[in-house]
């Protein structure tokens, strides 16, 4: 088995008296697309923030394949810089000599060629998310963390963006972690789906990426049942961590 890009072991996170995460363990294999799915407040985003090193766990360890692992986060609200043009938003964190050329290439890859001098306020919701994706891809990350990136989009744009992100991640064999509360999205985009509920990773199943709509629906249904099941019915045998 190849070395995991990131491995979480017995992670706990506490905010005062509130236990956001309890004994969570899982890993991400190279090139894998994993979706963390669950209801709001379940601890999904906390896990992403810990992996991105934006916060530290209260207990447990997070091991990275490389100490200098390049990780990039695509945030739900885009977090674009409104005073920078599209091109500068993509290139603002890069420092190499060919940064402009690479930024243009990345914008072309996400379908934003010709928008280089446009400001984020002039873009539609889908274009803004493409720009946020381009910015994340600009550093050639080894690990891409997607924090509910499509939550604010309409259904049609959302579906287009799902296949677009999947295609881009597959093309560069990018290890990706998607946080979402949409079970269909998780089933459609991921190789593996993990359900996070009340701060625990309670269920794991293979995703249906690239498979038939029927298979996607079956996986989504299975995941939804676990999310909606009362806590005591969560299968102990399938509990992770």
């Amino acid at each position, binding site marked *: 088995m190849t070395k995991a890009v990131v491995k979480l072991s017995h992670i706990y996170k506490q905010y005062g008296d509130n236990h956001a995460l309890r004994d969570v363990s899982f890993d991400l294999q190279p090139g894998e697309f994993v979706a963390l799915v669950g209801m709001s407040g379940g601890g999904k985003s906390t896990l992403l923030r810990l992996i*991105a090193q934006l916060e530290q766990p209260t207990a447990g360890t997070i091991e990275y394949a490389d100490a200098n692992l390049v*990780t*990039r986060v695509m945030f739900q*609200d885009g977090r674009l*810089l409104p005073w920078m043009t599209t091109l500068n938003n993509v290139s603002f964190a890069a420092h190499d000599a060919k940064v402009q050329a690479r930024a243009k290439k990345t914008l072309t890859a996400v379908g934003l060629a010709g928008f280089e001098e446009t400001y984020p*306020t002039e*873009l539609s*919701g889908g274009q803004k998310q493409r720009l946020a994706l381009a910015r994340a891809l600009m*550093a050639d990350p080894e690990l891409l963390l997607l924090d509910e990136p499509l939550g604010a989009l309409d259904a049609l744009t959302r579906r287009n963006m799902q296949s677009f992100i999947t295609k881009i991640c597959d093309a560069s064999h990018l290890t990706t972690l998607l946080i979402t509360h949409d079970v269909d999205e998780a089933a459609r985009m991921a190789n593996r789906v993990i359900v996070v509920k009340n701060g625990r990773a309670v269920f794991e199943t293979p995703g249906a990426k690239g498979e038939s709509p029927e298979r996607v629906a079956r996986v989504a249904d299975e995941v939804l049942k676990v999310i909606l099941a009362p806590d005591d019915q969560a299968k102990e045998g399938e509990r992770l961590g």
Partner: protein
Amino acid sequence: MDQTSESSAGKPRSFHVNWHNLLPWLIPVILILIWQLAATAGWVNSKLLPSPLAVVQDGVRLWQTGELPKNISISLYRATTGFVIGGLAGFVLGLANGLSKISWLLFDSTIQMLRNIPHLSLIPLVIILLGIGETAKISLVTIGVMFPIYINTFHGISSVDPNLIEMGKSYGLTKRQLFTKIIFPGALPTILVGVRYALGVMWTTLIVAETISSNSGIGYMASNAQEFMDMETVLLCIVIYALLGKVSDLIAKALEDLCLDWQTKGGAAND
């Protein structure tokens, strides 16, 4: 089709643009015309309120004698020097207190206490300490300008979206890059509001300072003319202050347009 687009994008549009440019000047022009009419028709005592034409003629006379350019330049010198010193001090303090909690704890309480003293009430103290020389007037402008710029710089920096700062950190920006690429541009709209407000304070302070304690400048010209009941010159000085204030505001607006052009962009495209 071409004819239609020509007629809609041709003459009517240019008329529309000109009209919009002229509209802000409509009320001042009407007021001046009413003033001229009232003076010419004898509705007002022309010794107490001379006509606009008489004020202009007085202005031309004073310009030719060299008195007006000399006094305008000395007032401009005091205003800009005080603005630069006070603006820099306010900016640096706002920056320090916005970026460092220790600096904020150390300075903010003192600044807030000083800020609440009306700076024009310091005139007697300034005259006693510094006399009626340039230092006194420049100091008053400096104090007046410093606080609005401090408040707006501090507020601008401390209200930058923390999510953007977190994003910058997660994208590996250094502290310096974080400042130049996220914090300063994020605070700039609020800082420029402070600059615009401070320009108004600058002229108000200078008028009062020059009227009370000076032997040169536009304010001195006005108070000196008042001694001789020279109403043309008194009104001329008021008009000059209004014009200088308007020019300052136009400069501030141009600065905003230059630095914040991204704010005027908008209207999401269709996907």
